[in-house]
């Protein structure tokens, strides 16, 4: 410790002032009732032997007062002195300084609010792609696309799908010459069934009915076979929803319209998809079940 620091030690200074005033330490102890040994420690500037800082400061104040001098400079010096040698006495005078050690980081509102909004937007965007959470908003009424319907039922005309009078019945044989005849799944689509399916699609889907009827005019054909339950939504090149419904395993769906189609599948691994007879891979990305894609003619 340097000489200048020694000169400013409060205990040492108080001792010098006491000796100059010719007052014994014993008389100060009697007046202040501070234990004699603690006064000795104070004069020796051995604060750690006195106790907590509150006592050291209070003893200095009482000691100075008994000498009839202002105690403030000594207390200030003590704070300064112990600030230099904190490890010696462990004084933390101002509670505000000690509390800084416990400072817990607070998130400012300026950061938190935009972060929450961003999180909400991201989650909204993410959930939009999840078919499980998407409700079929104004989806066209589902077509009874069950191709495996009992033939007897179809023949007896008990089908729920009414026949569209706009469609010429002889058109059916012609349709065998259309691109439909090139389908690689003749075992699924039988001629009569295709007719019924066309009828039913037209009957149950209001808007796409026109698209279906234009099959014979060379529009593009989309055929989806389902071997697992799957939600499907198909839009044509104009963005109009041709079909949107949950399909069961074993169902087959044939749609016609203007390519490119925008197809969204809820369970992409559970379907087999053909566009104009061309098989399209429906393998979703790793870890996902859904697939949304555009497919051309």
């Amino acid at each position, binding site marked *: 410790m340097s000489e200048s620091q020694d000169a400013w030690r409060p205990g040492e200074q108080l001792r010098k002032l006491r000796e100059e005033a010719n007052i014994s330490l014993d008389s100060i102890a009697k007046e*202040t*009732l*501070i*234990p004699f040994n603690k006064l000795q420690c104070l004069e020796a500037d051995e604060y750690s032997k006195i*106790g*907590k*800082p*509150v*006592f050291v*400061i*209070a*003893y200095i*104040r*009482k000691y100075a007062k008994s000498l009839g001098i202002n105690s403030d400079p000594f*207390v200030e010096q003590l704070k300064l002195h112990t600030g230099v040698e904190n490890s010696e006495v462990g004084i933390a*005078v*101002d*509670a*505000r300084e*000690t*509390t*800084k050690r*416990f*400072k*817990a980081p*607070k*998130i400012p*509102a300026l950061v*938190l609010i935009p972060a929450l909004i961003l999180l909400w937007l991201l989650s909204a965007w993410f959930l939009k792609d999840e078919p499980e959470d998407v409700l079929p908003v104004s989806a066209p009424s589902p077509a009874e696309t069950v191709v495996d319907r009992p033939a007897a039922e179809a023949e007896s005309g008990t089908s729920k799908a009414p026949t569209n009078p706009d469609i010429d019945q002889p058109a059916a044989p012609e349709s065998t010459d259309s691109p439909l005849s090139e389908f690689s799944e003749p075992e699924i689509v039988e001629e009569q069934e295709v007719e019924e399916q066309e009828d039913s699609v037209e009957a149950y889907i209001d808007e796409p009915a026109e698209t279906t009827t234009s099959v014979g005019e060379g529009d593009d054909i989309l055929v989806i076979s389902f071997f697992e339950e799957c939600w499907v939504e198909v839009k044509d090149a104009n963005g109009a929803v041709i079909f949107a419904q949950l399909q069961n395993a074993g169902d087959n769906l044939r749609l016609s319209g203007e390519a490119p189609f925008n197809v969204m599948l809820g369970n992409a691994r559970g379907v087999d998809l053909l566009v104009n007879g061309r098989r399209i891979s429906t393998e979703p990305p790793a870890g996902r079940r859904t697939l949304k894609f555009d497919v051309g003619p």
Partner: protein
Amino acid sequence: MLFKRLKGLFSNDLSIDLGTANTLIYVRDRGIVLNEPSVVAIRNHNGQKSVEAVGHAAKRMLGRTPGSITAIRPLKDGVIADFQVTEKMLQHFIKKVHENSWFQPSPRVLVCVPCLSTEVEKRAIRESAIGAGAREVGLIEEPMAAAIGAGLNVDEAAGSMVVDIGGGTTEIAIISLNGVVLSDSVRIGGDRFDEAIVNYVRRKYGSVIGEATAERIKKEIGCAYAGSEVLEIDVRGRNLAEGVPRSFTLNSDEVLEALQEPLSGVVQAIKSTLEQSPPELASDIAESGLVLTGGGALLRDLDRLLTEETGLPVLVAEDPLTCVARGGGMAMEMEESKRIALSF
């Protein structure tokens, strides 16, 4: 509830010294941020009451209000005397310390209460703080908070004695191992000192002075020990006989004479607590001394009087006015590190 928690993100933990004379608020990481008189001015307009001013502004109105405005001190003897006004006052103060906040604050609040408060009084304080917007309210005994704020060794197996002389009450406690071993509370404080001065002046000079003047006399020349330096002050009051304002000079010996009665009450309470203290703790106190906190500790030479009366070293804590509020804040931090249990 969830919204309150969300709002809590934007609020700071507060320690409130809800005193009879002054209310102090300690905010974590910021220290003492509010120190205002516990006074509310109420305007009564056609039977409808509204808050006119709170704190310093309201205190300036004390004794100077027209008929339509009433300046109220909602706390008396350390406890709530007017529940609704206390709630409004707390609401104002909590808002004031959260001025920069976007949301209405919903902080965790620790309120310091007199150690002999009844359950009804404690409940009133709790509900008042909740009504003022607090998310959670905890209570801590004032002497405990004062001891922590003064920097005493409350968590050691050693006795510490603290005397907190507030505006309405004087709290005396012996503390060891983070708990109050022995405590007493007397309804004598700064207000009683002021009242004694008012009565003395009326008796001796036949003049009436207000509470604010009495407080100024106490602060400027008041003393508690007979051998202290004699100081004087010029006072103006209304002469009772003539009915006009008259000025006269009052000295510190006269103030001491006026304060004799309340001071002897404080001394008696301290002696009584010491008599009941367990011998081991009494020995610790005799060694380390008795620590004074609260505004009353600033009364000149009160430590000398108590030293003479008790035979113990009597020490005045640094910044005694803020010890309770600071101690409450430090107690909240100690609770986080599981060093003390608070009842939230």
